[in-house]
């Protein structure tokens, strides 16, 4: 019951990011483009997460709309579009880091494993 309440409040506050969103956001701490992001995520998750191009396109557009990332350099150049994380984006990423940390500590306490 209590978990249910926390879950609902969490969702209403818009707390949790999807894994795709969070990973893509992390990939933008350095200027990056579509293909670079896909490689970054595949490398950093040891191949566990391989984003489809359509999903990645959707994620980038969502982040742009939320102003969590912005274009870098000259947009008129017909080159691959590069983006970088904004201050709002950093804030969102930091909140998500804390949230995951909380869950990780709770899970470790109950399930056991590495000490916090």
């Amino acid at each position, binding site marked *: 019951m209590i978990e249910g309440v926390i879950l609902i409040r969490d969702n209403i506050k818009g707390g949790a990011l999807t894994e795709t969103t969070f990973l893509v956001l992390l990939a933008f701490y350095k200027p990056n483009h579509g293909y670079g992001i896909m490689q970054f995520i595949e490398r950093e998750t040891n191949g566990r997460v391989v984003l489809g*191009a359509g999903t990645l396109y959707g994620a980038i557009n969502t982040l742009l709309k939320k102003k969590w990332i912005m274009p870098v350099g000259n947009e008129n150049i017909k080159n691959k579009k590069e983006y970088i994380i904004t201050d709002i984006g950093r804030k969102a990423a930091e909140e998500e880091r804390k949230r995951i940390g909380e869950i990780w500590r709770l899970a470790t306490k109950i399930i056991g494993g590495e000490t916090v």
Partner: protein
Amino acid sequence: MTKVVLRYFFDFMEGQEKWLNRMAHKGYRLKRCGRMVYLFESCQPNEYEYAVEFVADKSYSKSKDYRQFLEDMGFRTFTKNINLNFSLGKVRWRPYARGMGQIATSPGGFNRELLILEKKRDGKPFQLHTDLDDLISSYRAFRNSYFWAVICLLGLFAATFVPGIFAYSSALWRYVAKILVGVLAASFIISTIKYSMIIGGLKKESRTNE
């Protein structure tokens, strides 16, 4: 060696994708495609693989942007039509699309409802949509297009029963029209149900998984 094939797909997503992959398996690589014509050139069997993506729910500028993105990701892309409509200077309403995608013009987004994507076969699956939310919304986009086709066809089917509307045509033609429209509507209803069931399954999964 080039090969020209004349073909039209009612099963424009999966059917077309499977067929293109079968052709690639036999050693034919897509070079160009028209409304009903596919031009292939020889390649190593299984050198390439294909995916078909539905973009008719997007506005023309959005779908162009998406195509450019996919090109940058290293895919070769082709635009493909769903309809068989040979006209220029035309405006079409797509009730199933989002925002400006509802208006399709020719030249423009009309007859460019699909993207055919090609990549080198590298052992990894050719999956464009990898998270549940995104899968649901992509299935929803073409489920809705089938759904609106059903609505339009049912309207047409109903019209065949209205006395006076087809009065100028012969009784035989009215009978044939009824059957044609009915069969087409039934096939679209099946597709609508099929994709709705897929969406339902994914939604159930998305309650616990991402």
